[in-house]
């Protein structure tokens, strides 16, 4: 049985390393993104809750399935309870960097963090 590196040609290596390089540059880019300042929650596309990231709080967010419980503290913003079947939003953990995103697709809740630049922060992240 041939191992992958016995099969891979120079072209293969070029492609794999190039793709990994792009991914790593992107990851490094995200890691240096500044900590955000505002937490913005949208439900079904409409903004329903806005808070400061540095002020600990918690709130129940209404969605079509029920209440999604969001907590904001020194770890960032994170979901602790949700009526959705797969609990992916809880598994996503805390978000605190500008542009970070928590989404509960079944319950149509989206939590995003914005930086000091406000609305434009995600664009800044892409164009910088």
């Amino acid at each position: 049985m041939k191992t992958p590196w016995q099969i891979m040609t120079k072209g293969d290596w070029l492609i794999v390393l190039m793709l990994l390089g792009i991914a790593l540059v992107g990851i490094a880019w995200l890691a240096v993104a500044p900590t955000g300042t505002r937490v913005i929650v949208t439900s079904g596309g409409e903004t329903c809750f806005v808070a400061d990231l540095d002020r600990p709080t918690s709130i129940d967010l209404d969605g079509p399935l029920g209440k999604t419980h969001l907590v904001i503290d020194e770890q960032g913003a994170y979901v602790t309870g949700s009526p959705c079947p797969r609990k992916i939003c809880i598994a996503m953990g805390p978000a605190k960097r500008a542009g970070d995103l928590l989404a509960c697709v079944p319950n149509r809740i989206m939590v995003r963090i914005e930086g000091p630049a406000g609305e434009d922060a995600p664009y800044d992240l892409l164009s910088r």
Partner: protein
Amino acid sequence: MTCSAVDTEKLNRARRQVFLALFIAIAVSLHMLESLLPSPIPWLRLGLANTLALSALYLYDGRAAWTVSLARVGIGALLLGRLFSPGFWLALSGAIVATSVMIIVHRTCGRHLSAIGVSATGAAGHALGQLLTARLLIIQHEAIWQIAPPFLFFTVFSGVLTGWLATLLLERLAQHPAFQTTGGHPLN
């Protein structure tokens, strides 16, 4: 007994149908198995089913790869009860972009690449297709691109794995009597 040219053609077509049906069946099984396995993030799956689309591309042609990919997504969604759900559109767009990319790469620079390189680009295309659909249908915010780099990083490895498995499968199939008569090694 001698076979006429028409018979060989008929025989090859029947063989192709049988093998593609088998490929689709295996792809659907792998697809279902993977979606039943627990995963930390729903989109992170190995995509082993793509092994079969890739093998179809190397054994036959682009059309065969399309048949396997699209049938796999459609039948898989029916069996999992996900037809026309967000997950279905993600899987469909991923499959469409991945298959197009693999066919184009195979046709344009197939001489310099093994199945692993073709598979890795296909995997990256799959990630891109899924993210585009997620951007348009589900998240509807530029913040979705945040998950692109880690997603791409993971997907390259799964692409290499898939390409490797496809190579092993193609080597096995090359020894199969059905591919002895058609002449030539499928990897060439």
